[in-house]
């Protein structure tokens, strides 16, 4: 049944109405001449409706003549009729199928390459490596041989540990894992000096390899050689070693703060006056009196541009000016309070200049008192390990 329906639909069939006195004879004649009809329905007296294949249509015209009945087509169903109906729109269908074909052809290629992963290699370098392997935007998917690309890149790049490829539609996702090379000390085994990277006084010096240049208590500045890699003697030639030592310096950090005894403190009274204006291009329309009664005030102007549908700006602006009244109070603090506050702030400033690994030994304050202010200078004494290796050029 299903197969027959499908066949009939693809070949096309017609719903026909036959009107006449001898409809029974009409059906019998159809049978005699092997014309297949189905779904016969009786409408009224002398009217029947049935379905017939396209190809049999001209045959029943003769039968209609014999039986003296009228044939009228009610409905035409099937693909041939659809084709006839849409013949005028064939350009549309051609373009439609071309578009689908175009989308299909475009989907065979890669249009976006995304490189993901946690790595410190510049992304452009990875992109160039991929381009060298012909893996670039617009490449056909079937031409990609990921194993080959991976192999060649692994050979060229030492710092890429693993690459993963994934294709999602027209997007290729390349995952890169970097090989973290062990952090070798470049100057290990190379003749070098140890120089100071801080100003300070030598507190402790312990030399494993090298020639000690400073003693405990010496003042050193940034860049001074603390341990030399050149070992020389009177009877032997100079020899060069890679110095190794631990040096601890006493360093100082300072911070200076001045605090006045008298201070103005601004408090807002909470009274607010709002004034409104409308700005039309260059014209300003005041909606309220612009003067304020406040003696001391903050003036805050807020301009709101009116928009149409939240997108298109109109040349109308609503200007709101609010005056907020405030009072100025003069407060006085005692000498002790000022000193305590200044000490605290100076310590914070001094600490902010310190290096992270320094140990605080002592904290010293110096105070200068004037008539209006107190000035405090905080000095933090620290102990910290210093020393940077520097290659000897000879």
């Amino acid at each position: 049944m299903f197969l027959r329906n499908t066949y009939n639909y693809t070949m096309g069939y017609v719903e026909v109405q036959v009107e006449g006195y001898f409809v029974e004879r009409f059906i019998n004649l159809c049978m005699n001449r092997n014309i297949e009809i189905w779904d016969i329905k009786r409408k009224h007296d002398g009217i029947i409706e049935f379905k017939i294949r396209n190809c049999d249509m001209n045959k029943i015209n003769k039968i209609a003549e014999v039986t003296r009945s009228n044939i009228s087509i009610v409905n035409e169903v099937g693909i041939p009729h659809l084709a006839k109906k849409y013949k005028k729109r064939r350009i549309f269908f051609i373009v439609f199928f071309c578009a689908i074909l175009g989308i299909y052809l475009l989907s065979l290629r890669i249009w976006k390459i995304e490189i993901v992963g946690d790595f410190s290699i510049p992304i452009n370098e990875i992109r160039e490596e991929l381009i060298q392997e012909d893996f670039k935007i617009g490449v056909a998917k079937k031409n990609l041989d990921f194993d080959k690309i991976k192999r060649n890149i692994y050979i060229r790049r030492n710092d890429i540990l693993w690459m993963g490829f994934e294709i999602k539609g027209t997007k290729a996702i390349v995952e890169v894992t970097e090989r973290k090379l062990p952090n070798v000390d470049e100057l290990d085994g190379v003749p070098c000096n140890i120089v100071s990277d801080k100003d300070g006084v030598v507190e402790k010096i312990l030399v494993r390899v090298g020639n000690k240049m400073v003693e405990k208590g010496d003042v050193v500045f940034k860049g001074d050689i603390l341990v030399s890699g050149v070992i020389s003697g009177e009877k032997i030639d100079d020899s060069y070693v890679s110095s190794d030592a631990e040096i601890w310096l006493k360093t100082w950090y300072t911070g200076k703060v001045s605090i006045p005894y008298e201070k103005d403190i601004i408090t807002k009274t909470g009274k607010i006056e709002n004034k409104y204006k409308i700005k039309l291009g260059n014209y300003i329309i005041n909606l309220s009196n612009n003067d304020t009664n406040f003696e001391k005030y903050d003036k805050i102007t807020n301009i709101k541009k009116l928009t149409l549908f939240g997108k298109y700006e109109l040349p109308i602006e609503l200007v709101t000016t609010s005056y907020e009244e405030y009072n100025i109070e003069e407060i006085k603090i005692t000498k002790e309070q000022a000193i305590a506050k200044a000490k605290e702030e100076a310590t914070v400033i001094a600490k902010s200049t310190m290096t992270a690994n320094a140990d605080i030994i002592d904290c010293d304050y110096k105070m200068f008192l004037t008539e209006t202010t107190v000035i405090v200078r905080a000095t933090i004494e620290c102990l910290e390990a210093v020393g940077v290796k520097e290659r000897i050029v000879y």
Partner: protein
Amino acid sequence: MEKGELKGKILKALEMPAELLNNCPRMTSVGNESVFIENYKAIIEYDKNVIRISNNISIFGENLNVAEITTDGILISGKIKAIEFES
């Protein structure tokens, strides 16, 4: 012995279906919804309430339709009330 008698005897001996013998119609009905008649000759009357077929068979019912018709058989669907044989 007549010609038909011999044919009948042969068919009986071979256990062949009876409708082959004298071209009488064979009817298959599914409840009262449809009747399939094989070996019919022609439609004599076709109405909503009655369909008369040439082998003196009348089918009475309501909203009778000929769902399928071929040279071999005719399928009548609708609410069938009676099948009558006239002789």
